[in-house]
């Protein structure tokens, strides 16, 4: 009996604790009072979040965290990072250990609805692809009939592959590996003809090979993997801040504002769209409970979307991933941000 009442008190406390977390505005206040954004990132993914030789976290996921800090504090360095494993990430967010999650997490209905979190946008449109040896002379995945395919263990990868080959009436032999290093070695030694994984990973896999130029990533993408930042459900104010930090970077690229010209543009611009984004016109920062120059700080300290893409995973990096789906909608891609207005 006594045991039961203790349990009841405990569970009430737990529920109260969680509902307290979910109060609108609570996260922003907490972040402001502690003076930094606690950001959950990956425990190591080339180009997305990794540590360089000086021990600084880098990558496109890390830059999203920095953008939020720049918007809130005007200082992109006010972030503390929590490297999280795939298993820990949602609990860390739910329990309040981190304020936001920016960790190559695919936006799916079950995660959005059932896990108590909200995805704020898409930083990278990923999808499962194929890496093949050029000698094979294959130009499209449809020509892969009878191929031996290396897969990294992971249920969706295997499922997507079998779905795709069955839908196209192709035969294949799968070889499953546990780590990306093993599958890369296997492709190199010729044990399999083709390697399948998320496209963002394939470029990293290719660098691991002794002769990366002998291999090519096929154009087909056989699954949708939109990766984006997520926040706890129930705090719309914080949700908006994280969402619009990303949108500000996208809008900046679309309007031709980058880290080198942003301060000058903010003063001299005649374009009303740019003026609204950069706070020269209207009070749009205030609506978000952010300083007037929030977007200026993001672009100045972190960069626009194109800059962070090229620097971390695009032409300015070792990975050399093409913009593809991640080009702006004006260039035939999917990246589109609502206007600041």
């Amino acid at each position, binding site marked *: 009996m006594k045991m039961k009442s203790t349990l009841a008190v*405990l569970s009430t*406390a*737990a529920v109260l*604790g969680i509902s*307290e*977390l979910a109060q609108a505005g609570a996260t922003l206040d907490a972040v402001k009072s502690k003076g930094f954004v606690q950001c959950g990132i990956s*425990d*190591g*993914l*080339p*180009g997305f979040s*990794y*540590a*360089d*030789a000086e*021990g600084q976290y880098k990558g496109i996921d890390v830059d999203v965290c920095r953008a939020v800090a720049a918007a809130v504090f005007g200082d992109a360095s006010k972030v*503390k990072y*929590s*490297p*999280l*494993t795939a*298993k*820990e990430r949602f*609990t*860390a967010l*739910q*329990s*309040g*250990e981190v304020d936001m999650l920016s960790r190559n997490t695919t936006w799916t209905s079950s995660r959005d609805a059932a896990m108590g979190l909200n995805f704020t946008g898409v930083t990278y449109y990923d999808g499962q692809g194929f890496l093949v040896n050029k000698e094979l002379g294959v130009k499209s995945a449809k020509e892969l009939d009878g191929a031996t395919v290396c897969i990294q263990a992971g249920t969706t990868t295997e499922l997507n592959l079998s779905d795709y080959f069955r839908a196209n009436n192709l035969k294949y032999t799968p070889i499953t590996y546990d780590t990306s*290093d093993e599958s*890369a070695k296997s492709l190199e030694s010729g044990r399999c003809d083709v390697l399948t994984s998320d496209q963002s990973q394939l470029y*990293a896999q290719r*660098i*691991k*090979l*002794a002769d990366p130029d002998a291999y090519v990533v096929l154009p087909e993408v056989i699954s949708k993997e939109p990766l984006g930042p997520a926040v706890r459900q129930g705090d719309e104010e914080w949700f908006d801040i994280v969402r619009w930090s990303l949108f500000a970077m996208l809008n900046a690229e679309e309007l031709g504002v980058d880290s080198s010209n942003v301060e000058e543009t903010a003063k001299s611009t005649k374009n009303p769209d740019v003026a609204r984004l950069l706070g020269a016109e209207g009070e749009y920062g205030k609506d978000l409970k952010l300083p007037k120059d929030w977007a200026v700080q993001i672009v100045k300290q972190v960069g626009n979307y194109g800059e962070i893409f090229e620097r971390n995973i695009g032409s300015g*990096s*070792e*990975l050399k991933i093409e913009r593809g789906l991640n080009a702006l909608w004006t260039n035939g891609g999917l990246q589109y941000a609502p206007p600041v207005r």
Partner: protein
Amino acid sequence: MTSHTFKPDLPPPSTSVGALGWARANLFSSWYNTLLTLLGLYLVWLIVPPLVDWALLKADWSGSTRADCTREGACWVFIQTRFAQFMYGFYPAELRWRVDLAAILAIVGAAPLFLKAMPHKVRYGIGYLIAYPLLAYWLLHGGFLGLDTVPTTQWGGLMLTIVIAAVGIAGALPLGIVLALGRRSDMPAIRVICVTFIEFWRGVPLITVLFMSSVMLPLFLPEQMNLDKLLRAMLMVVFFEAAYVAEVVRGGLQAIPKGQYEAAAAMGLGYWRSMVLVILPQALKLVIPGLVNTFIALFKDTSLVIIIGLFDFLNSIKRATTDPAWLGMSTEGYVFAALVYWIFCFGMSRYSMHLERKLDTGHKR
């Protein structure tokens, strides 16, 4: 008178002495031993030359970027450029002297314990065991007496591995001894508590325990009460290993003949004094191999903290292999990790052999 002199002994047949004799006796004594020897030699020939070729002859030793490596052999440049990170994690570079100092003090402080003629050795040892952890906490973590705080989130590398293992050993040994005594206690309440504790912790895998501590626990704690992740992990390691130590020590206690207990009682010694002065010194000596076995396992088990996102030695290496500037260096990283782990574990096992010989007071004939 005939003097009787023996002829000098003939030398043993040349096939039974020297290298040849040894090989004959040990490697080619029968047809299947010969077969196994040849098979072994073939395997060595298959493995060693390419390994030496890769690790030494064709390896690249100097440079600063990935491009400095020809990739024909191992690229040790990777280990060189990341060496500090593998040792200290993200511990601020200008404060790393604190880690070094803590390590030096650990060795220098423990050195007198190994001297044969050292007065008040036991008192010194107890003092050291109490004072050093406080000193190490002050040096590594800081936050008072003039040292800046270095939060545990910045700890990493080999330093973190050793901290977890040392705390695990230092915590698990006393707790384990107490549990072992408790399990053999005449008092039912104490016995039940100890048996439950031991069987619970032995019944769950360490990886599950770590995972629970990192994933489930935060959900039940209020938001402000964020227990340090490393502290949680260390507590779990201590409890887990204490259960194993308890069973090892219990084995030693059971091996002591009943006469020893009775003799101690006949001398008028109470429970604690008979345990500390008579039973435990004998029992612990008996179980040195088992204890060291547990501690070696503990040292290697620390690498399981990888699943809760702590960057110990192995995970630091893994993290470095995801830097786009150094992709494809995982083989070098893991070989280096294996070497370091081996050095530590081999060292521990040699030390335990030395201890056994030193404390051997007549059980062996």
